[in-house]
């Protein structure tokens, strides 16, 4: 094996991940196994992690999708810190339902707009959507919402925005005596409407639905709305409003690190 270890950090242990995933050539494998024979730490690591390494090798396509990257932002440094994609626990909270998870291909809006100083900081990537089976009782609003989400999933964000605008209007005017809307439906509609508008490069109109959704009583929805609201503010050069949206997110386990990174950038 070429002496990669001295080339890098001087530690053969660095090859452990490459070894267990089968990336090393035969000579490298043999040399690493010789190292392994005298290294209890590496032995324990491989032993403990063996089921995970095996699962990754047995079904790499499945796990590659989970690691779908985000090539966000127009500046490499910012992209590194700020990009990411979301996992969604909240449909389980909202839905008395079975979920059909929809994998959303990560398509990133190049968030640079001429004439805006803050726009390069914005990172706008699609919010993954998991279809929710709604209880009966509000068929029309639910149908409109799901039509909008069909367009969203298909990547037609302009059409999704139009349909979700209509869905939000119907829900806002929904008479109380007709029966309650599913919990969180209106906030969801507003969030996906806002995200669709951002992805359709219309950040101005996204401000209103996202501001409203940010007031949701359901914390997971409110957090997501605030995150996208902050992006909309950046894209429309509203530094203070972006700070205001980001500050409460610093404590969030989902958005905390990215919100703090963005606040740091804003301070600079």
């Amino acid at each position, binding site marked *: 094996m070429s002496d990669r270890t001295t080339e890098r950090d001087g530690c053969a242990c660095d090859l452990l991940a*490459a070894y267990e995933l*089968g990336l090393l050539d035969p000579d490298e494998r043999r040399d690493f196994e010789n190292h392994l024979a005298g290294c209890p730490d590496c032995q324990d690591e491989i032993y403990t*992690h063996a*089921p995970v390494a095996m699962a990754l090798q*047995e079904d790499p396509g499945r796990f590659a999708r989970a*690691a779908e990257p985000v090539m966000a932002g127009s500046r490499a440094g910012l992209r590194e810190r700020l990009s990411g994609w979301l996992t969604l626990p909240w449909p389980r909270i909202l839905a008395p339902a079975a979920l059909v998870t929809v994998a959303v291909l990560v398509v990133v809006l190049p968030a640079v707009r001429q004439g805006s100083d803050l726009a390069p900081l914005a990172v706008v990537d699609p919010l993954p959507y998991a279809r929710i089976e709604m209880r009966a009782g509000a068929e029309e609003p639910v149908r409109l919402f799901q039509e909008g989400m069909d367009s969203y999933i298909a990547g037609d964000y302009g059409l999704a925005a139009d349909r979700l605008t209509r869905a939000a209007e119907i829900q806002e005017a929904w008479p109380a005596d007709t029966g309650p809307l599913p919990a969180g439906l209106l906030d969801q509609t507003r969030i996906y409407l806002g995200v669709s508008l951002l992805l359709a490069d219309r950040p101005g109109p996204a401000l209103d639905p996202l501001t409203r959704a940010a007031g949701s009583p359901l914390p997971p929805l409110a957090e997501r709305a605030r995150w996208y609201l902050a992006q909309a503010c950046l894209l429309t050069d509203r530094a203070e409003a972006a700070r205001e949206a980001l500050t409460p997110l610093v404590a969030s386990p989902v958005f905390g690190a990215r919100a703090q990174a963005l606040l740091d950038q804003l301070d600079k």
Partner: protein
Amino acid sequence: MNADALSLDELCARSQRGDPEAESALFDSLRVRFLALAKRRVQPDHIEDVVQDALKIVFDRYRERKQGVGILVWSLTVLRNVIGNYYQNRRRERDRMEFVEEYPRDAGFTSDPLAGALDEEGRSALEDAIAELSCRFPRCGRIFHHLLKSLERGGSPNQVSGRALAAFCEEHPDVTRGGFYTALHRCRANLRAIWDQHGGEPNHE
């Protein structure tokens, strides 16, 4: 044949082609490795039994393992399951001594040492952990993504790592193969930490 000059996977390949010398060298080597691990996990009186049980299963079944999975990683999974069974049996025995008739913790336990890497629940949890890794450490997400996509396409180790490195170099042109492996190792440590936070694999020990 100089067995020391060959990796375990090469010995394994030769064994599968019917080379008894390679097979003997392979199992000698696995035995040494199993003993080292078992000594840190099993009571001294039981080390030999556990190692023999695991080696017997590996010997009987190693030809059937899925292609592409390294012999050491695969056989350590077997050893892990055998040690898991050992602990389950000890708990059961202890509880029986304490006149506990039912042992609900064992209800979902499979004693099959070849039960596989992770069950469906474990794989879903791993997906979540990888998604969280991508969210918290985007660079790691990209490294795993490129690598797993390349693994999916298959090929020799050089082809797999070469493709993954080439994809990663589009963003980081200065990265060497060694640097890529180092970065991968660090990302694995991050994944491991997240996996452990999520509860990871049930620890039978």
